[in-house]
């Protein structure tokens, strides 16, 4: 068997591969059958709708150019927003993958290395059981921060300026700029830009509340002057987001 053609072909080639596939892929697959895969319309939640409507308010002209105008009538109106929001979310995810964002930003919080203190609650399996995690965006490297709790932490205009020129709001950032998400200036995001902002705001929007992930106090030994910026930002953003969420739920 050990040196014969059939032994190598069937035992090593097919047999061992099949064993590994069953034990390492089929087992988790079967285990997670109890979490049905969520489809796109189910992924639009109140927090995301708030952010998406905020995009329409902040950038009325680019938004209309990209998505058109909502129809009259309450039911149609609501359905229109949900559909456009789902469309933007799915397109944003395609851009996130196509631009290779996931090579420098992860999307999972590990239960070690104080990650829950920095980012928020540790990732759970059911969070990933949806069509936008096919393939899953766990990521591989963190040049920039993890993003799975990013939604709602920063405002849409912060993200727009950041995508247009990261260094203007994040000093020393090695992130590339993405001018092709905009028609010339950061206050004119095009459809790509709007979709990308929607996707980023979706990440973690299913959480009960947004964690104050940067609300820790940096040690005086590490940095003599505390940086007020991110704290002020988070504090300013969060109540607004919560208020909006409450508004959506009524």
């Amino acid at each position, binding site marked *: 068997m050990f040196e014969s053609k059939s032994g190598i072909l069937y035992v090593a080639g097919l047999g*061992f591969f099949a064993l590994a596939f069953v034990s390492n892929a089929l087992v988790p697959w079967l285990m997670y059958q109890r979490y049905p895969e969520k489809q796109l319309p189910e992924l639009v939640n109140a927090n995301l709708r708030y952010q998406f409507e905020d995009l329409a308010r902040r950038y009325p002209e680019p938004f209309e150019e990209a998505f058109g105008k909502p129809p009259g009538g309450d039911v149609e109106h609501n359905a229109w927003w949900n559909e456009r929001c789902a469309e933007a979310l799915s397109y944003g995810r395609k851009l996130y993958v196509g*631009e290779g964002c996931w090579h420098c930003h*992860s999307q999972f919080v590990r239960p070690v290395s*104080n990650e829950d203190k920095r980012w928020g609650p540790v990732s759970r399996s059911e969070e990933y059981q949806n069509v936008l995690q*096919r*393939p899953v965006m766990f990521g*591989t490297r*963190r040049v920039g921060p993890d993003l799975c709790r990013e939604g709602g932490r920063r405002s849409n205009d912060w993200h727009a300026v950041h995508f247009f020129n990261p260094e203007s709001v994040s000093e020393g950032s090695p992130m590339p700029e993405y001018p092709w998400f905009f028609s010339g200036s950061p206050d004119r995001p095009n459809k790509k830009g709007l979709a990308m902002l929607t996707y980023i705001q979706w990440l973690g929007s299913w959480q009960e509340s947004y964690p104050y992930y940067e609300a820790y106090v940096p040690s005086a030994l590490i940095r003599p002057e505390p940086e007020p910026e991110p704290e002020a930002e988070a504090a300013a953003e969060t109540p607004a987001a919560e208020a909006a969420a409450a508004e959506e739920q009524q």
Partner: protein
Amino acid sequence: MTTETVQTSRRGLVDEKLVGFYFGAALLFLTVSMLAGLLMSFQLIRHNPLRGLELFSPGRWRMVHTNAVAYGFLANGFLGCLHWAIPRLTLQPVLDRRLSWLIYAAWQLVVLATAVGILLGEAQGLEWGETPVWVDPVAQLGLLLVAVNFMTPIARMKGPMYVSLWYFLAAFVWTFLTYAMGNFVPEYLVSGTSAGAVGGLFIHDLVGLFVTPLGWGLMYYFVPILTKKPIWSHGLSLVGFWGLAFFYPLQGIHHFLYTPIPMFLQYGAVVSTIAVELVVTTVVINFFGSIWGNFDIVKRNLPVRWFYTGMVHYFLTCLQCAFQVTLTFQKIIHFSDWVVGHAHLVMFGVFTMWIMGMMTYLIPRVLGRDWASQRLCEYHYWLSTVGIGVMAADLILLGLFQGWSWAALEPWDVSVDFSQPFWVLRVLAGLAMFGGLLAFLTNILLTLRSPVPAAGSVPAAA
């Protein structure tokens, strides 16, 4: 070994022109890949000369970098070497020469289409599975044809199979299955955590079941030929092959430790990773046993030096792997540049070096003339060796600093700021490696322009 008899009857068996064409394509894609890597490394030190241009987006070129290495360089390089080795080992030609050329042309189209698709923003979200949807079925068919074309001579041959053929035979089956698993299952069938498990299995198997067995199979072929000594122990060869075949595919999940993937599966992946390190040690011992008392050959014979440098790196990466796979190390090094250093040490330090060694040996034979410049060959070796050594050490050390900084809850930008000097050193190391490649390409051009020697004279072993 059978190699002696094989060498005498090579005429008509080997399509040497095809070997040369495969090497040409491999080196072209390696050049593209290294330029792409340099672009990304310049972006990290914030000196990207091509900022803000959509088609030169560093994120997209980073994917070109990894895909061009896997499918453009490694696949082409290995296919060239296989077209040399398999007909000689089996004393049978491949199934069909026209099919070989068809595969060659189709494969270059696959690689080009992948690169174009990625640059247009059509990538898919799995490492090494970024190949756009419309390329996947063509690539799958190509791999099937490769398997059929090469497995036919192996099936037709009489008598016992040499070690290399065990590896090749298994690798053809594994590569086909691995590509199918990685490019269809996590994209269409499963999502979420289980897609992570399949994805981990895919990126791992692509290294372990496509690159590694082809690499070791070729080492088992070329080392005895160049050293004119048999492999030290047949028993260890058996342990190496079967150990790899059993343990390697079981480790995919070790890429996603501390994810929501069930913990017992993570432990299984950790244990089999440590087990494969023991197997690797037996293989490395076997190869060093084969040149025991004859170490001088590493100084005299450049291809052998490439091979054994690669083996030292192989042992180091696998040793590193046995540590980094533990949950203790993972806490710190996951997501850091340690992993990037490890990946370069494997892909460049081992497999690229082996292919470079085989090219250094085969190109004069394919072209029918000696290397134009031995000195450029030496430059190629030393620039590559020093470059990868510096890059790997630099990134692995940086990874520890990043991991500790994150765990200590330092503000995120601190980790980016102190990475800068390390990233600058990485650019310099990358430039050295690229310089080595340029020396090699120059040498090939000079050799092509040098006169063909009179018939009958055999090129010296570089």
